[in-house]
């Protein structure tokens, strides 16, 4: 439970970013999650990403459902409006918020229970609609707040802390996101900040439905031998296909790379994604290939990570609806109300 306010003091030498904010300006309340929780690392990565992007904190809205992961928006970006909504329903609330004001950046934070079980429908439909958002699932394969039940992303054969073996098939949210038309799909690991921070930056800069599945071990209930979501297991089986180095538009490409080693992807907002290839044959702009690679790695018992797919020219829900550029929540009476004269005409048509 968050009731501990952080002291406002900070080190005088903390470096400001391009907006003059320090990293502290992107922090939130003190986390009340368990010591060592992977989710806190993700919060730290979000803070770092927003700071690095020179993002005005109030221009971002953070939304979540219910669960350990959904508590975390209180622990980062304290100067942003936040909404801890109801279980499994963050995607619809975020969709509505986005419809109301297309000018803000929307960050949805959810968990594997919140998105792969109760909220699987909303996860799927928000992605297939192309809601312009960054959707992060903090995936630990277990229900933490209710103390250790399997979630729908638990792999078959994995063991609970009490020794029970899961026989159900797992829901792979990355595979679903690819099939449902997400225009940015990544997987990462809470223990790999160097990989995660640029992915979050790229997702926040992406126009369209950006999804990041972050394996985030639960130190309390799912970090034991026999779990496929433990720190040790994920480290051993992590197969990164690429490294995202730089994403800012203003940076010039100065380093020399051997041909085929780097892939440059220019996004809609002008940001440039520079991908250092780790798997030589991986093409992150090919959705079909991404799905194949996902299956191949899974068959080998590996956890594929990195930027798995990106469509830099994706359309979003507002494009599809043809909504006006001015945010709907800022339209004035005269733009909304047709007036008495128009009504007189309507009355005539009903006689």
């Amino acid at each position, binding site marked *: *439970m*968050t*009731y501990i306010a952080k002291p406002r003091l900070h080190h005088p030498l903390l470096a400001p970013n391009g907006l003059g904010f320090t990293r502290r300006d992107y922090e939130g*309340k003190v986390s009340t999650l368990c010591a060592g929780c992977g989710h806190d690392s993700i919060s730290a990565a979000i803070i770092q990403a927003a700071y690095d992007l020179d993002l005005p*904190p*109030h*221009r971002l*809205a953070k939304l979540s459902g219910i669960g350990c992961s959904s508590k975390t*928006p*209180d622990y980062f970006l*304290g*100067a*942003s*409006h*936040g*909404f*801890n*909504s*109801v279980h499994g*329903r963050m*995607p*619809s*609330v*975020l*969709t*509505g*918020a*986005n*419809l*109301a*004001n297309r*000018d*803000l950046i929307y960050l949805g934070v959810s968990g594997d229970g919140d998105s792969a079980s109760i909220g699987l*429908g*909303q996860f*799927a*439909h928000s992605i297939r*609609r192309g809601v312009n958002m960054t959707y992060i699932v903090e995936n630990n394969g277990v229900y933490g707040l209710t103390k250790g039940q399997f979630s729908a992303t638990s792999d078959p054969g994995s063991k609970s802390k009490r020794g029970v073996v899961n026989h159900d098939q797992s829901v792979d949210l990355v595979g679903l996101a690819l099939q449902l038309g997400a225009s940015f799909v990544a997987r990462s690991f809470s223990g790999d900040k160097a990989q995660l921070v640029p992915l979050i930056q790229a997702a926040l800069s992406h126009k369209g439905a950006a999804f990041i599945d972050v394996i985030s071990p639960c130190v309390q209930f799912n970090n034991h031998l026999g779990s496929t979501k433990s720190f040790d297991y994920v480290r051993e089986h992590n197969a990164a296909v690429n490294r995202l180095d730089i994403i800012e538009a203003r940076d010039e490409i100065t380093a020399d790379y051997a041909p085929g080693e780097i892939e440059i992807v220019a996004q809609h907002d002008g940001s440039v994604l520079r991908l250092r290839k780790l798997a030589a044959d991986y093409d992150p702009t090919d959705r079909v290939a991404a799905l194949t690679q996902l299956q191949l790695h899974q068959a080998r018992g590996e956890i594929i990570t990195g930027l798995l797919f990106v469509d830099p020219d994706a359309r979003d*829900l*507002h494009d599809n*609806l*043809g*909504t*006006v*550029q001015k945010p*709907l*929540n800022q*339209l004035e*009476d005269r733009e*909304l*109300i*047709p*007036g*008495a004269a*128009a*009504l007189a005409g*309507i*009355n005539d048509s*009903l*006689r």
Partner: protein
Amino acid sequence: MNRPTTRLAAVNDFVVKFANVNGSGSASANGMFAKAILRMGVPVAARNIFPSNIQGLPTWYEVRVSEAGRLGRRGGVDLMVAMNPQTWDRDVAEVEPGGYLFYDCTKPLPAAKFRTDIETIGVPLTQICNGAYTEARQRQLFKNIIYVGALAWLIGIPPEVLEALVHEEFGAKPKLIQANLDALALGREAAASTLEPIGLRMRASDQVGDRIYVDGNNAAALGAVYGGATVCAWYPITPSTSLAEAFTAHCQKLRVDEETGEARFAIVQGEDEIASIGIVVGAGWNGARAFTCTSGPGISLMQEFVGLSYFAEIPAVIFDVQRGGPSTGMPTRTQQSDILLAAYASHGDTKHPLLFPEDPAECFEFAALAFDLADRLQTTIFVMLDLDIGMNEWLCRPFAWDDARRLDRGKVMTHAELEAGREFGRYLDVDGDGVAYRTLPGVHPGRGAYFTRGTSRDPYARYSEEGPVYVANMQRLLRKFETAKSLVPAPVIRPAKRRTPHGAIYFGSTTPAMHEALEALEGQGVHVDALRVRGFPFCGEVMAFIAAHETVFVIEQNRDAQLRTLVMVEGGVDPAKLEPVLGYDGSPITARFITDEILRRIRGHARTPVPQVAE
């Protein structure tokens, strides 16, 4: 041709019912018949009674013609147009003694299929169609137009009235104009050559005035446009679907930028009702006026979000077009059976303002008002329509709008106010009305941000699970509900001509039948003061009305006397004082039923509610 000893005779005052098979194209022909009566200056009410089906099941269309403007269901049928062999027996049985039965006499029927106390009027419709048309579908469709032509002659609707309607309807398709005119003429000639006009007559009048003829879903959708709604999220469900479709049509006409073609609205068909209300709550949180429209089953699914809207104090508007439920629960039949479901929706201690429009004119007004109330009270407002209001066209006063009216956005703290250092506590009751200021995301770089949760927070939106903090917040929410009493539409009282110990409370689509019942009761020397409830929470006027009478009849279209329960619980009223009068068989309540029930209770002192018997 049977001719009974007494025939019903009336001018501009009778009930015609069409019994058809759905999917046969009868709806547009029957609609033309009703509209022709309107064009003669005579008020009309038409009600569609239809199955949850696309083709093949029975459907009825009941037309009340009333020069005096009595537009509720009267009860009984004076002229039955029996076009459906499946329902022949019950249709014939429904005709008033001395009434008329119009049928297709191509194939002879045994005498036992008829009644001797009603007049039978046979026109060989199938034979005429088979002679005039070769295609099966044409024979089917034009049969409807032919019977309208015949009926028009029988009751005295001039041919030119129908012909003008044909020109309006098919203006863009000249080929269809002539075909329909020919079909009308076939019917007219068939009737004129073999029949005589019947005792039910139409005569041109001037009683329609400037009134409009429109369905409540369409009116509510237009009200949402005028109320500034920009986000609509919905999931198809009868009988509310046409509200979202009408909103779409209105927005495409009224809210598309002429230069850029851009839409000043966003409409999303959700994957279910939960997502729909979730989108509404998200949009409301972010300052857009948003609504969903649904029916009882949808309200059930939305419960959790309605509670979140209550506790997190987020504006939302829900149009509930009521029907029976669940599953295949009389989905196309009308009821007022979601009153308690909506009033106390969700878990925890919750209650929500409800608006009860009486007709499409109020659907328009209350729809627009609902968005102001939602912003003013920062909570969910339910607009309680039903299938009868929502899906039937009603004759009502024209829509009106005052161009000086401004949208009331409620208490939203602005950038300038935050910049000036005004204190912001998201749940701080600064004005004593229980309503706190909110801020919208993105308003200010350094001030006004807060974290939205359910109940576990203090007046400054800081996390708290402290008992006293919770209780203080719940008390403030009660204060806010008290504030709502003065904001929802006040009741309308219709006093009796004489002082009386009897009162009656009614609401929504019951209104026209209730008014007719009150007139009928007065005619029998029974005087009843009547109060039409238009909003919940109930204001003091409602309670004063109850206190001023010995017995108060509460007329509702549900089994459990739900409004009565709400009055009892919220007003602390003695149950013995409130007599339920309940018609809930799925067809709109009739004036005769209300009259008979109230008479029986007053004269017979009966205490047991007797349900309206299905027709």
